[in-house]
């Protein structure tokens, strides 16, 4: 594990004093909170899930880990061909469900299959064989890929912006950065994305504003000892017949960072209010429609007296989401 912070922290992300108050926040849990407090409660605090991870999620996870393995092997001295072959082996083995003797990727999403995953990985590694974004080396000698971070935003004990109002405990931000690299003599955080959508201006506009990009941008500014220029979105468009790649820098000004942090303080105190009152209001405007429908729409639209039973029948409970867990 690459950890670039030396921050003494309990392994639990939760408050020891206020039930259901999350203190350690990553972009996933913060994103759920911003979308809908009730959904946040179901997904993050209670751990309800539909069971199997989606093909989209699996595809992204394996693509990330394969490209990360490639970087590590190159750093250890392997040549490009050897590193590509090992990354290919990784994709093949990681995408196989050894328990049930079948591929994990079900083929329900035609662009996210085992074949398109292999193709995208190999094409990506060939495309960026001489990557202009040079991965930096961390103090531990490892390449800066899949780098974990966590930091406190509270300046001192009197700074209530990023502390629990009830207990005084600090809120912290945490997460995992795909890569930290140097491009044009400046430091950048690189975040890989896979999508079926075209990589045009419209696609990249989704990152202005964007919770994850703002959080990573601030993380880079806080935890690295050099200024960070921003986040580069390293996107792969995966189609049935081919894959395309495009990268684009995402900038945040100092004023935009401050604005996001001011909002963050409000969101965290709202989370505390939900926890203290144990009331998690539904944001009906976040239920979505069509393919974007929230998986809990059926629960939230049912009679409150049968919701728990429906949850237990229709969902699987996993351990509570822990953003501090090392990868």
């Amino acid at each position, binding site marked *: 594990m690459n950890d670039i912070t030396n921050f003494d922290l309990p392994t639990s992300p939760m408050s020891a004093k206020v039930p259901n108050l999350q203190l350690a926040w990553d972009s996933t849990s913060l994103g759920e909170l911003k979308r809908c407090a009730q959904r946040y409660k179901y997904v993050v605090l209670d751990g309800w899930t539909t069971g199997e991870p989606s093909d989209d999620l699996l595809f992204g996870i394996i693509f990330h880990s394969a490209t990360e393995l490639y970087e590590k092997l190159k750093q250890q001295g392997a040549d490009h061909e050897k590193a590509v072959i090992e990354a290919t082996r990784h994709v093949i083995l990681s995408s196989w469900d050894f328990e049930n003797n079948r591929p994990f990727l079900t083929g329900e999403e035609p662009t996210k299959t085992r074949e398109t995953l292999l193709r995208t990985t190999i094409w990506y590694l060939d495309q960026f064989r001489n990557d202009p974004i040079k991965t930096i080396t961390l103090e531990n000698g490892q390449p800066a890929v899949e780098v974990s971070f966590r930091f406190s935003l509270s300046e001192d004990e009197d700074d209530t912006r990023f502390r629990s109002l009830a207990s005084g405990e600090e809120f912290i931000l945490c997460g995992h950065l795909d890569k930290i690299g140097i491009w044009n003599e400046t430091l950048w955080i690189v975040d890989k994305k896979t999508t079926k959508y075209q990589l045009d201006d419209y696609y990249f506009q989704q990152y202005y504003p964007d919770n994850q990009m703002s959080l990573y941008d601030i993380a880079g500014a806080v935890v690295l000892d050099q200024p960070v220029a921003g986040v580069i979105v390293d996107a792969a468009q995966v189609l049935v017949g081919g894959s395309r790649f*495009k990268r*684009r820098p995402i900038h945040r000004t100092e004023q935009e960072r401050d604005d996001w942090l001011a909002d963050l303080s409000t969101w965290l105190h709202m989370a505390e209010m939900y926890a203290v009152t144990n009331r998690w209001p539904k944001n009906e405007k976040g239920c979505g429609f069509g393919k974007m429908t929230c998986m809990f729409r059926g629960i939230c639209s049912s009679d409150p007296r049968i919701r728990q039973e429906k949850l237990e029948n229709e969902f699987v409970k996993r351990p509570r989401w822990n953003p501090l867990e090392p990868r």
Partner: protein
Amino acid sequence: MPTDDNTNGNGSHGSFNLLAALRGSLRVIENPAPGVDPDSPLSEATADSVNFLLSEINDALAEGMPEKITDEKLALAVDIFRAQALRWVTEEADKANKPRTTRRKKNEPDLSLAVDIEL
């Protein structure tokens, strides 16, 4: 050396040689056989190779023998996907260079920037 006949083998041959068979497929990719339209989506030939290779790999995994997935087989898989990439890049360039005679429909993808890599 195998003939092109067994590039389309169904695996029922007792000593079917995967590597030789797939090399045969690759040869087809580079030099289409008579009757094969070189401008047709070669993806068909490539898709056959990919499907065959994945099927062999799945069999090895299902048998609990991942060690059968040798470096040589993986190198072959990489070659097949690279052949596919060459085809794709050519097709993309052709599309980008083709003059538009009609106005692009609202939801039709704009391929003019398709191969643009900014960084």
